[in-house]
């Protein structure tokens, strides 16, 4: 590139940098600033109050619930989604009949819009009209209709199940691509040495795709922690806060109750969590890149 080309490089970059600066980076800082101001429906004019919104949020009953729910939600979805995604990828890499068709069909939930997914599953879970209860009763698993989303014992599990249903195809895609890069000759050598399928998985396949697995787990942690639509449409954080996670709590506090300061404080906590996750992501990816042969 000559020096006149350098001007072109910057001209091409300018719109993207400007947009990201104004609409992503500035709001991130804005949330931190906002958290030191108190706004409410009665007094919509922001008033600087120092750490007092933090004290209010931290001492509220809802805060530990939201933290706990976010942990259960994030770990539950990530773990199940990656396990199911991995085993689906293994299964669809065996050369069975109708493999291509199954692969394409499995991607359907991934493309189904989030709000549609939520509405469809609200209906599936409906105590009287839903398919789940009528199937489970017919199979003899349940004696009477269960209110999956209306009971605080089952609501979180029910929502996690839906997120896994929608999310596992994405993990499957990534793992399938990784599996197809595993050295076939190593697998064959292991088979000749008498290694069964489980040994081959542990000794050859897993070490070969370890980096992809790690990066993918951290990536899904970040995405899952930020999830909003499915939870909001299915439960609105209820019943009795049983499914309130950071994004739904922020939305409800901010746009439902117009308490922007409190919503922003929840936002700051979620930024802190995210910073830790991103740091882990960078470390994992760096060490993965370092272990890769040069080139």
């Amino acid at each position, binding site marked *: 590139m000559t020096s006149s080309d350098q001007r072109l*490089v910057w001209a091409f970059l300018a719109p993207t940098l400007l947009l990201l600066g104004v609409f992503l*980076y500035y*709001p991130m800082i804005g949330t931190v600033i906002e958290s030191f101001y108190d706004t409410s429906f009665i007094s919509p004019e922001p008033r600087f109050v120092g750490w007092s919104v933090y004290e209010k949020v931290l001492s509220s009953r809802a805060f530990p619930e939201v933290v706990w729910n976010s942990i259960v939600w994030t770990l539950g979805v990530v773990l199940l989604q990656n396990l199911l995604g991995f085993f689906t990828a293994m299964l669809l890499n065996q050369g069975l009949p109708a493999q291509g068709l199954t692969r394409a069909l499995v991607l359907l939930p991934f493309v189904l*819009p989030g709000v549609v997914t939520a509405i*469809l599953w609200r209906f599936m879970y409906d105590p009287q009209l*839903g398919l789940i209860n009528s199937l489970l009763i017919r199979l003899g698993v349940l004696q009477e209709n269960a209110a999956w989303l209306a009971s605080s014992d089952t609501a979180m599990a029910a929502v996690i199940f839906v997120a896994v249903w929608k999310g596992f195809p994405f993990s499957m*895609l990534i793992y*399938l691509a990784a599996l197809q890069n595993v050295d076939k000759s190593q697998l064959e050598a292991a088979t000749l040495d008498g290694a069964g399928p489980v040994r081959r998985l542990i000794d050859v396949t897993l070490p070969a795709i370890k980096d992809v697995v790690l990066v993918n787990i951290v990536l899904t942690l970040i995405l899952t922690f930020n999830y909003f639509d499915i939870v909001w449409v299915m439960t609105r954080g209820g019943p009795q806060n049983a499914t309130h996670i950071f994004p739904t709590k922020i*939305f409800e506090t901010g746009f439902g109750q117009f308490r922007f300061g409190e919503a922003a404080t929840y936002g700051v906590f979620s930024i802190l969590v995210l910073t830790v996750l991103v740091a882990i992501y960078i470390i994992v990816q760096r060490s993965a890149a370092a272990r890769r042969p040069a080139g």
Partner: protein
Amino acid sequence: MTQSATTRWILIGFQLLLALFVLLPFFWMVSVSLKPATEPFAIPARLWPQAPTLENYVTAFRPEFRTYFMNSLIVSGASVLITVSLGLLAAYSFTRGRLLVITALMGLVVLAQMFPHSAIIIPFYKLMRSVDLLNTYASLILAYVSVTLPVAVWMLRGFLQKLPVSLEEAAAIDGAAPLRIFWEIVVPLARPGIIATSVYVLIVTWQEFLFALSFTSTKDMRTLPVGLNDFIGQYGIRYGELMASSVMVSVPVIAVFFFLQRYFVAGLTAGAVKG
């Protein structure tokens, strides 16, 4: 790989179970959308309607649905166009620029794709309010372009990195201006990447819910996901119409995705596997 016949049958069984797990909800959605209002759908749930009818679709395709559909089409269409254009320009600079500062800026772009939308939405909302853009297409398009740009740049950069620089160098020696090289050599070669990225932006913006819910307050500006969410209250227990609307919202993205999926899958996995 060698499999015994029994193993193979067990694996095929698992594959059928998998297909059932994925498809049963879709099947149920379509089936209920085709059931006449007079036919009960539960206790015990009948899987397929006795007398399938399109009446739910006719009722669900009401004027407000058409408005939401148009709004979604406009907002998503504009977002795809703007994001992919700006993303391609930026990605070109990120692959061809040699300065250290450019590498650092790419880091900031990658970082931005992980920002939680719920954590930036309040300042974003206030910004839109202060310039009087709430409840306009512009506010949603600005939001969608901003949140999809990081991944778009990252995907397009992956594609551009694979293009041979020699073609561009040869054109430069022949005296072609940098802009012409970009327009006549790089853009045509980057077509698979452009398609993959467009599909990504379409999938994300077609279903975007949080910004649309926060930024639009009147019915004439709402997009499909928000409108569908409103229907839950309005339709009450009229699931037939709700499912018919759901099918109509989903069919466009599913169709585009299956038509163009090989591009999209290549774009997504190339980046994600290679890092």
